[in-house]
């Protein structure tokens, strides 16, 4: 059953998460962008701020409507709290002719993300398939994942979605699964309220402590139509029909040469993408015989990524862009039973050359 909350109740929700022992991660204005930061209070939410995004371009702006969640895709998703960009995995020390490993206990910090977008929640469930559902499970990821609570916010405010295309990827603008609570923000004239739905027992427990009235049919209908409006007006699209097969047959397409000439192999797209899972492992040692292993986000756009003795496999920008695009839109399906792209649009916004994956996919389709 849905409830209706006001702005003050959202602040109370954050306070109650904190008193339940959660580290609250939420959106905030920082470094001229609306991104996720830990230690969120109600007053940190970017009230009245929004953003404009286009290929290679990001700007914040005043919305003038006091919206708490009036932003589109953040520069990075909040996945770093589950899958950190850089983490020590274990350390080892010399012990005569052998060594002893010290594995630190998995992280037990409870994290609550407030203001999570549907695309990013979908991306998390995709990363779950990589780190939890395969033959081997990543214990550190599993520990963080079990301690995660998600308060998602459906996209309901901006009809022009700029670079996003979640509707065609089937991941949004309404959050689908994996969250604990979903909020829909509605601003109509001087009315400003949130329709809240709990998805899990923990979500219900938390919502019960927050003052709110049962939502009426008008409010539920307003929320539904605002979300549908965002979906229907989404400018960018990917025709996902038969996409894995199309991509898999596209290796020889001349389009990869064209886009390869624009691509700088800067790795931006892979650093902002919420589904990319590649990591580099680095082992280092000091003079006292103590060695550490660190794991950090890596990118298939680096030469090192495919290095084997005798040289790299993917030497050209063309080959690396092709690997990235075919992985996202194609081979991911065979590997994990899902697309590797949720349509968050970040790779478009943050590409210094303004390369637009939706345009590339369309070009490949037209050629085929």
């Amino acid at each position: 059953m849905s409830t209706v909350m006001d702005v003050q109740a959202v602040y109370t929700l954050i306070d109650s998460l904190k008193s339940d022992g959660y580290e609250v991660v939420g959106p905030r204005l920082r470094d001229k962008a609306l991104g996720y930061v830990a230690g969120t209070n109600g007053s940190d939410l970017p009230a009245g701020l929004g953003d404009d995004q286009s290929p290679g371009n990001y700007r914040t702006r005043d919305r003038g409507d006091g919206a708490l969640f009036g932003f589109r895709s953040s520069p990075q998703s909040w996945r770093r709290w589950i899958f950190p960009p850089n983490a020590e995995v274990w350390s080892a020390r010399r012990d005569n002719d052998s060594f002893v490993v010290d594995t630190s206990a998995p992280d037990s910090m409870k994290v609550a993300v407030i203001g999570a977008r549907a695309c990013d929640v979908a991306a998390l469930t995709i990363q779950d398939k990589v780190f939890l559902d395969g033959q081997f499970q990543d214990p550190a990821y599993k520990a963080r994942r079990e301690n995660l609570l998600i308060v998602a916010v459906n996209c309901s405010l901006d009809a022009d979605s700029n670079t996003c295309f979640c509707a065609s990827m089937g991941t949004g603008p309404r959050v689908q699964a994996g969250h604990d609570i979903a909020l829909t923000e509605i601003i109509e004239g001087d009315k400003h309220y949130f329709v809240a739905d709990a998805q899990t027992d923990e979500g219900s427990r938390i919502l019960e402590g927050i003052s709110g009235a049962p939502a009426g049919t008008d409010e539920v209908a307003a929320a539904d139509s605002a979300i549908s409006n965002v979906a229907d007006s989404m400018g960018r699209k990917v025709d996902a029909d038969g996409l894995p097969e199309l991509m898999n047959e596209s290796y020889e397409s001349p389009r990869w040469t064209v886009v390869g000439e624009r691509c700088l192999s800067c790795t931006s797209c892979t650093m902002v993408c919420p589904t990319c899972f590649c990591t580099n492992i680095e082992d280092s040692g000091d003079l006292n015989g103590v060695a550490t292993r660190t794991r950090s986000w890596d990118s298939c756009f680096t030469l090192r990524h495919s290095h084997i003795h005798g040289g790299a496999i993917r030497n050209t920008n063309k080959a690396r862009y092709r690997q990235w695009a075919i992985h996202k839109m194609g081979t991911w399906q065979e590997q994990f039973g899902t697309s590797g792209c949720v349509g968050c649009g970040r790779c478009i916004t943050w590409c210094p050359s303004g390369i637009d994956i939706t345009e590339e996919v369309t070009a490949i389709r037209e050629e085929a």
Partner: protein
Amino acid sequence: MTIATKQNLESIVGAPRPAKILSVDRNTDDVWTLRLEGQGAFGPGQFNMLYVLGVGEVPISISGSPGKTDELLHTVRGVGGVTNAITSLKAGQSVGVRGPFGTSWPMAAAKGRDVVIVTGGIGLAPLRPAIYHIIENRADYGKVSLLYGARTPKEMLYADEFDSWRETGDIEVLTTVDAAIGAWDGDVGVVTTLIPRASADISDAVAMICGPEVMTRFTVAGLAERNQSKDNIYVSLERNMKCGTAHCGHCQLGPKFVCKDGPVFKFTDVAHWFEKREV
């Protein structure tokens, strides 16, 4: 969210287990074989991640007999930071081990059939467990031909075992080198030139190939010329590997994770990607 725990063996996903080095043998100028304490069962063609404290970790095939689980053999060519550190280790020291990982040569599918093994250089290391397995179960297989190429006679791996493979193993061992430096009166030329001379019936044999990608490509073509159906060809592939557990993404070849779906593949399962450049 509560998540069911799956295979989460500390020594596989987590940190390496130190394994004592029992002995080290030099095979060639830059190749050494380490004999370690046994690790348990493995399939011919599988590999371990070997770790040297503070230096790094690399994928190395198991090169001993799958019938002997009380010892673990690894044959390593020193080519860079980690492999040079491995080959500098001495008996009594330890090396970190995680594994075994990956798929194996099709020893069951090859039963009752002729077998042709084509390999070059260090590529013989991951095939030696298959050769040992055949010798230990000789009645299960038909004619077996090993076609092996090295750059020079000095770089030929396990040359001291060839006679026993021929005599007690009833395996045809044909060798060739790229350059006949020193006392060599054998064949000179690439390994594919040996294909027409194999006594195994190539048109019906199970083929196992491991070597540099160019060698593999030419070998597949050479076998096809002798009416080998590509369905009978198995290849072991090499990619950069950081984890072995299908998490780091480095070893991808199209939709395949070479660490998990390979390194040994049925050729037709990877041909679509393997036959293209820079995939």
